[in-house]
C-alpha cells in the first residue's frame, strides 16, 4: 500500500447526527430497536481562553504559548530520547474538541521524538505532576518527516498533564567514534565490554537470544530501545544486522557490550524509510539468555 498520504479534508462543522437519526427513524415508523443507542460521552468543553493565550501565558521563541494550571512535584524533565505518559485534551481554537485521553480513561504513552514539535517543546519544560495549557501554532504540529503528505496544519490548544517520564537509557558519551581502548574486528566492528558475563557458552547464528538493546545514531538520537519499554526482545542471531550478528556471536550470557557499527554493517548510508537509521550506529547490547539453538547446518540427504 502506498504510504504517501493525501489526507481528507477535515470537516470541523460535522454535526453529530446519531440521535437525530434515531428520532427520524422512529418517527418514520421504524422501530428504534434496530439501533442500539450509543452511550456517547459529551466532549470536554473548551476553556474560555481556548482561542487566545491570556496575558499571563509565557510564549517561547518558537511561538508556543504556555500557562501553568498546576505545579507538579517532580524534579526531572523529559529529554529528547524519553517517552512520557500523559493525559491530554486538544481543541481547535474555535473550541471544537479534537481528541482527549480523558474520555478514553487511559493515559497515553507517547515519545518525545514522535509528538508534534510544539508539544515536545512544552513537555521538555515540565516536571511530573505539572499540568499546563499550551497554545501551539499550526506550523509546529505535523511535520513532513517522510514522503507522506501531512494533514492540514491548524492552530491547536491543548491541556497536558505529565504523569510519568519513561526514561531512555543514558546516551553514551563516545557516540562519534570508538575510544582507543575499544577492540576492533576485521570487518570494522568496534566494541567495548561494559559488563562481564558468566560462562563460556556463546550463541550460534541460528540461536534465539534474549537481548536488551539500545541503538543511537552518532548525533545522539535513540532510534530503538528495549530498555525504555522494559521488555527484552528475542532475536534469531542470523536476523540481526551484520554488525550485531557478528558482535552477539562473541558474547556470553550476562555480558553487556557497546558496539560501534560502521554503516556498511548496519543499514547503509542511503536514506531509507522513516525510522530506519542511516550511517554509523552505536548499540549497547546485553545478552540475557541463549534460549535455544536450532540444529546447526548439517548435510541433508539428496534425492
Amino acid at each position, binding site marked *: 500500500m502506498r504510504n504517501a498520504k493525501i*489526507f481528507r479534508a477535515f470537516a470541523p462543522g460535522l454535526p453529530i447526527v446519531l440521535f437525530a437519526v434515531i428520532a427520524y427513524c422512529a418517527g418514520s415508523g421504524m422501530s428504534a430497536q434496530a439501533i442500539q443507542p450509543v452511550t456517547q460521552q459529551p466532549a470536554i468543553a473548551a476553556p474560555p481562553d481556548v482561542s487566545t493565550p491570556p496575558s499571563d501565558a509565557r510564549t517561547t521563541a518558537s511561538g508556543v504559548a504556555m500557562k501553568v494550571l498546576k505545579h507538579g512535584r517532580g524534579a526531572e524533565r523529559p529529554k529528547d530520547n524519553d517517552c512520557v505518559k500523559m493525559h491530554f485534551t486538544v481543541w481547535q481554537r474555535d473550541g471544537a474538541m479534537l*481528541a482527549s485521553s480523558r474520555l478514553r480513561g487511559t493515559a497515553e504513552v*507517547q*515519545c518525545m521524538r514522535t509528538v508534534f514539535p510544539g508539544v515536545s517543546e512544552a513537555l521538555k519544560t515540565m516536571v511530573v505532576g505539572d499540568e499546563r495549557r499550551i497554545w501551539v501554532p499550526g506550523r509546529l504540529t505535523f511535520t513532513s518527516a517522510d514522503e507522506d503528505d501531512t494533514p492540514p496544519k491548524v492552530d491547536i490548544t491543548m491541556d497536558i498533564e505529565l504523569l510519568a517520564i519513561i526514561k531512555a537509557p543514558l546516551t553514551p558519551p563516545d557516540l562519534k567514534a570508538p575510544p582507543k581502548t575499544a577492540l576492533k574486528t576485521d570487518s570494522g566492528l568496534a566494541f567495548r565490554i561494559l559488563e562481564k558475563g558468566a560462562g563460556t557458552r556463546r550463541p550460534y547464528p541460528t540461536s534465539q537470544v534474549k537481548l536488551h538493546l539500545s541503538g543511537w545514531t552518532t548525533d545522539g538520537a535513540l532510534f530503538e530501545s528495549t530498555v525504555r519499554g522494559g521488555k527484552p526482545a*528475542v532475536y534469531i542471531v542470523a*536476523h540481526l544486522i551484520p554488525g550485531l550478528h557478528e558482535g552477539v556471536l562473541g558474547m556470553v550470557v550476562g555480558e553487556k557490550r557497546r558496539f560501534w557499527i560502521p554503516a556498511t554493517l548496519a*543499514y547503509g548510508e542511503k536514506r531509507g524509510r522513516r525510522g530506519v537509521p542511516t550511517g554509523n550506529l552505536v548499540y549497547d547490547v546485553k545478552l540475557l539468555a541463549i534460549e535455544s539453538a536450532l540444529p546447526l*547446518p548439517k548435510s541433508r540427504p539428496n534425492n
Partner: protein
Amino acid sequence: MKSNSCPHNRRFWATAFLPAFVLTAFTIAHSQAVNVSTRNYNNQRTGANISETTLSTSNVNSSQFGKLFQNQVDDQVYAGLLYAAGLSIGGATRNVLYVATVNNTVYAFDADAAGAPLWQRNFNGTGRPTRNTEVGSACGAYRDFSGNIGIIGTPVIDESTSIMYFVTRTVEGSSTVQRLRAIDTRTGADRMSPVVISAPSFSSSLNNQRPGLALSNNTVYIGWSSFCDTGSYHGFLMAYDASTLQQVGAFNVTPGGTRAGIWMAGAAPAFDGNGNLYASTGNGDWNGSANFGETLLKLAPRTLNLLDWFTPSNWMSLNNGDLDLGSAGPIFLPGTNLAVIGGKGGGKGYLIDSNSLGHLVSGDTQIRQVFQAVELTNRTGVTYHIHNTMATWNSPQGLNLYVWGENDFLRAFRFNTSTQKLNEPAFAEGAILPPPGMPGGMMTISANGSASGTGVLWATTPRAGDANQAVVPGALYAFNAQGSGATLPLIWSSSGVGDDIYNFSKGSPPVVVNGKVYVASLSNIVSVYGLRTTPPPSQNLALNKTASGSTPCNANEGPAKAFNGSYSGGNTDKWCSLDAGTKFLQVDLGSNFSVNQIVVEHAGAGGESFDLNTQAFNLQVSADGVSFSQVASVSNNIQSITTHNIAPTVARFVRLNVTTPAQTGDAAARIYELQVYGQPASSVITYETESLTVAATSGDLHRVALDTGYSGGQGTILEANAAGDFVTYTVNVPEARTYDIRVRVKKWNNRGVWQFSSNGVNQGSPVDGFSSTPTFPEIDIGNLTFSTAGNKSFRFMITGKNASSAGFWIALDYIRLIPQ
C-alpha cells in the same frame, strides 16, 4: 449513490432472525475435512482455523517440525492460498492447494506431496499482466509490486458448487481489462463465461483489485484500491451474483471526490450474521454524506447500499500524519457483534458495535473502545501501522485478540466479558521484534477448539529490511498463542536449514490446515511445512554437490558455502570472490536433470546490507561442463533473493557469472545460496498445446478451445478448411534420446484427418479426428529418437477428411513425451 439516512433499512428486518447464524458462521465444523475457501478462513475473518487436530504447541518444534516440500509456480504470489480437502480430482481423492500468481495463473497442487500441478491454467489469453512500471507513478519508481500485476486479490471458493471466483488483470492492446472469472475447482475449466468488470467512474487501469474476494448470500463481493494513489481514482466495492455473474451492486466510496481505496493489505471484507458487509477505506475525500475516506463502511447485502459508517476523529493525533484506517481489514470477535479494526494512526485499534458504528464524534467517544494496539516505545520516529487483519481465538482462559503492528512485538489482548471491552494493556507479548519497517506480522492461528496447548499463532514477517515498496526475505514464526505468563513463547522459526520461506509475501498470510502450514512467497515458490521425524530429502538438486568458482575472498568463503543449504550461518556462510572481471560460481549436479528453476540468495539474504546484493549476473547451464548456454540474464537486480524460472533444460552443470557484484561499486561477489530445482531428466513430459509456442500456421485461425474435457479445461483448435492446412509448434525436447510420442485430441463431427511430423519427417499414420460425439482419446504416434536436445518443430497437417465430417478442424489437448 443512494442516500440512506437510516442506519438500517428494511432488509434488516427480513434477515434479522435468521437462525443461529453466529454459531455456524464463527465455527469451522469439527470434522476431518477442513476447507479454506476464503481469506482468513471465514467471513468473520477471525484468522483462526480452530479445527486443527494435528499441530499443537507440543509438536511444533525444531526437532519434529519443518519444511516438507516446496512447489514451483510461474510468478510471485500476492493472493492468499486456498485449500479443498478430499476433492475428487483427476480420478483420485486428494487434498488440494490453490495458488494464484501475478502472471494470472491459477494452480491446483496436491496439498500433501510435491509434484507437478494437478492442473494449472493461465488467463492471459491474448494479453499480458500489467507491469509495475506502468502504474503507480505517484510514487516515482513504483515498487509495491516488482513485475507482473495479474491476480492480486485472494480468490474465493463456493464449496457447494466447486466454483472458484477471482479477478484477472490483463493488458490487451492499449487497454487494461479486469475480468471476474468462475472456474471449476476440479479442472480449472470455466463454469461461466468471464465478465468484464465495469461501473460508472471505475477505472480498470487505475483501480487495483487488492483485497480478497468474499462470498456471502450467493453473492461475490470485490473491492478495489489503487496503485500508490495515482490518478483520480475512486475506491470501489462491487457485488456479483454468484450464479450468473450479473452485477447486482456497485459502491463508489468517493463519488464526489477521489481516492479512499479498499486496501486492507489484501484482507477481504467481513460480514455480520445478516450478510451486511464491512470494509475499511484508506485516505481520500470525506464529507460524511457521500465521500468516505478513512472510514469503516457497513453496506447492505447485494445492493451495497450504505447502512452505517464510522470515521475516527483522531486525525489530529499526536503522531505525525499517515493515518489510513483501511490498512487492515475488519474482523469480528467470535460470539459478539463487535468488530475490530486497526489502521495506521498511532497504533490505535477500534472496537465497534456493529449494530451502531457511530459515524464521527470528536474523541471517538461513541464507540466501544479505542485501544493502544501497538506500543510506541520500542522505536521512535517510525510507523506503527497495523496491516492485514488482527486474529482472534477463544483460548482456555478467554477470548484473545492478537495484533502485530509495525516496529513492535506481537501482542495479545484479552476480551473482558464484564466490560465488553479489551483489557489494556496487552496481557502477553511475543518476543520477536522484526527489522525496522513494514508491515509487522501477517498472522494466522491454528487450534483444536479452545483446548489447552493447541493454540499456535503463526506469522510471517520480513527477516531483513523493510517490505514497504520493496521485496525482502521473509521468516515464518510460530508462537504459543495461549501464552505463558506475560509472554507468547516462540516455539519455532524458519531459520533452520532448508526451512526458508524465501521472499516475504506481504499480501498472503500463512494458511494452516489439516496438519500442514502453507506459505506463499514472492519467489515463485510455495513452501509446505509439517511434522517430520527427519528432514525429508531436499528438492534442491545442488545441495552439497561438487562446487567450483572464482578465488574465494577467504579460505572459509569457498564455493561450497553456496551449496550447503544454509543462509543463516553468518558472514562466512557464503561464497565470496574478489577476482577481477566476471566471477563465476559453478555446481556439478552429478548427473543430468531437467532443470526448470534456479534460486540465488544474495548478500541481503544472509543478513548483509542490501547494497551488496548482486546487481548484474547471468546463469548458464551445460550437459557436459564444456559448452554452456545462457538461461537467464539480469542487469539491474536490487533484491536479496532472485528466482529464475527457465524452460526445462537438461543440464548437469549450472554456472552463475557475476558481472556487477553490488549496488555500490563494491568489488566482491557474495552468494549465500545457489539452489537448483527440476525433475529427473528421464521423466514423462507433457506439453499443453495452449502453452506451446506456435512456430507457423497455414494462416487459418488458431485459438484456445475451452471444454472441461481438456486437461486444465483448455486445448487448441486450428480452424482448418482444406487439405494442406497446418499448425507447427516449437517443443523444447529435454534430452537426446528416444521418446514415445502421445497426442491427446478432441474428436468431433467437424474434424479433419491429420498427419504428425517432426522436423519435416512424418511420424506414425494419419489420424482421423472425426467422431459423431465428442471424445478425448490419447493417440500413440510411436517412438521417435532425437539426436540432440533442444527446440524441435512438431507439425500437424490436414491430409483430408472423413466423409461424415463437416469440416477439417484440428483440436489438440496435449503432446506427451514418454522416455523409452
